[in-house]
């Protein structure tokens, strides 16, 4: 059965690590649905959030193969109900449209979006939410003419526990590992 999984990878800050990660998807002909990378709560440790649709057995193997890459500290995968996740979207419409139709403002309010910037030419709007929510706003703005629309990859935190990576790192340093399969 194909499911959606959120994979979190914590890595050292090394050149080529993204390549090492994606190779493991490519070799299984797995498509990456979404990808976000940024420095994590721990300085120098980078966090990749990757969304993939595949079978459970596939993601289990994949995660272990990622985990064994030398520069990867730790890899987890989480199911839909185990993560709290968001994506950020930005939209640009003509300021004239925005001013002429009071509907646009109502749409923005209804979707809990916010206006980032207004110039003579355009108005930039931002919305954070699930993909279907940012998409819905896009659909509703479309009739008014959307000049630009972008959406970020997913960012996610677990519903299960707080990020244990720093404790994990301490343990790694002390080699007090107790890992189970």
């Amino acid at each position, binding site marked *: 059965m194909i499911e959606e999984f959120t994979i979190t990878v914590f*890595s*050292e*800050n*090394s*050149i*080529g690590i993204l*390549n*090492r990660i994606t*190779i493991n998807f490519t*070799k299984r002909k797995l498509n990456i649905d979404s990808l976000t990378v940024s420095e994590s709560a721990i300085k120098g440790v*980078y966090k990749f959030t990757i969304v993939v649709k595949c079978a459970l057995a596939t993601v*289990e*193997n994949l995660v*272990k*193969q990622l*985990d*064994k890459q*030398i*520069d*990867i*500290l730790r890899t987890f995968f989480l199911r839909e109900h185990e993560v709290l996740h968001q994506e950020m979207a930005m939209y640009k419409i003509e300021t004239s449209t925005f001013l002429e139709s009071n509907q646009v403002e109502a749409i923005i309010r209804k979707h809990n979006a916010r206006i980032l910037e207004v110039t003579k030419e355009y108005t930039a709007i931002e919305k954070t939410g699930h993909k279907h929510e940012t998409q819905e706003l896009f659909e509703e703005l479309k009739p008014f003419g959307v000049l630009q629309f972008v959406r970020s990859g997913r960012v996610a935190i677990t519903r299960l526990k707080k990020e244990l990576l720093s404790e994990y*790192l301490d343990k*790694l*340093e002390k080699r007090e*590992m*107790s*890992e*189970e*399969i």
Partner: protein
Amino acid sequence: METITLDNITTKNKTSKRVSGSDALILSLIAENVKTIFGYPGGAIMPVYDKLMDYEDQLHHILTRHEQGAIHAAQGFARVSGEVGVCLATSGPGATNLITGIADAFMDSTPIVCFTGQVYSHLLGTDAFQETDVLGVSMPVTKWNFQVTCAEEIAPAVAKAFYIARSGRPGPVLIDITKDAMFAEVDFCYEKCTKIRSYIPIPETKDIRIQQAVELIDNAKRPLALVGQGVVLSGAEKELKEFIEKTGIPVASTLLGLSALPNDHKLYTGMLGMHGNAAPNIKTNEADLIIALGMRFDDRVTGKVNAYAPNAKKIHFEIDKAEVHKIIKVDVTVLGDVKDTLARVTKMVSPNAHVVWRNSFKFIDDQETSRVIQKELNPETGQITMGEVLRHLNEVTKGEAVIVTDVGQHQMVASRYYKFKNKRSFITSGGLGTMGYGLPAAMGAQIAAPHRKVVSISGDGGFQMTMQELGTIAFNKIPVKMIVLNNDYLGMVRQWQELFFDKRYSATSITSPDFVMLAASYGIDGQKVTDRKDLHAAVQRMMDSNEPFILEVAVEAKGNVFPMIPAGSAVNEIVFGDE
């Protein structure tokens, strides 16, 4: 992200002096106790080659005739010695010529460190002459790789490379060095790497897993132990022997596990897999317990996965977590180094003998002997068979040789019929099945083990893939014994065409030069045998020689290797070929 630094390396025995990056590389190798390297020069690696002349008495460089020869030689060197094999190549084509060998080492967990030259760092990414993205190209087939762009990075990169290549599940590592880093000056200081925070070479073993394994072993009525190369890599041959001798558990080996246990050991039941022995394959599916020791359930071993060992609980002794449950779901996973975990299990298990179960293998063995082995080893008429050559080799070498093979029918015949006495005596390309591996790997093995007799066994096809290494062998007087089993076919593919493609022999008939004359042109002695009556004496002559020697044997053109588990069949559906 910022530029990389090689931190996380713990320090010991520091020495310091001002040298060039090239010197730093060579001194680092010497610090790692490397005595021999294989390589081929070119523009981007020239500064290192220049400095090699200053260290000739400490570091022996062997010039191969192709970079593929260098990497396979390094692999053979590593496999026979258990040490890290090292090779050196230039940028671009030099580096890409290493890739097949790196991929092979990656599949077969061979500890290798490759150094490739790279264009000047200011030219990176500009498609400069002989620039290839070697990190990108090698990434899918290396355990780790790294690009050095300044001299300061050289020593720590080498330290890390050797640590990664040899620790945990070994594998190939590549270090790409820009030319400017070789020229630049640096205060040389070598610190051995002993730890990397993001890398756990040996996972922790849980006591409970040892207990669970012991319990399953004690309760098993029909246990079978499967030995993989993990046993060899971990140096656990003795622990293996103690374990089986205490428990009376019969043992089978994968292709890469061969020679971990002497073939004549009373508990040894033969080789697993597609062309393995019938009894261990069939008995796999009768066993009530499979004890997998440092093996990874390769598809050539399991046959049809969902019909594999259906009656057995399974214990997996494994160092690489990513191998656990990958193909076969197991009941107990004993993570750790098999040398340690197996010894712990042995201490706790109850002595046993499993006489009835062991005796039940005999009936199948007899079948295989009468229906396959007898005909293969002792044919009375017809052309010489490959098995016959192996029989004579056994008689002459008494199982003491290091056998290095290429890939194909001859490989399967060699693995089936050589009677290994000593550990680390079988070197073959298993996971990747790389034709052209045998000759250069044998060359490397012979250099690593100068006091052992090293015999390479190749087919006429594969020999032609790397036979340029005859040049290296001749020049360095490397006394390898080379057997070419010439069937005028790409035999293994032809066999599949015969069995599964209606005998349509597409592109498998292959012509060859006269191998003995070819070798003679390099000044290498040899003999060609076409008649059965000359075979024994020729093998004897070859083995008596203290020099390189080639023995070409004209063998049966359309011989087939049996038994065989046809692809997609279960292990107990093995066929003898006379059905």
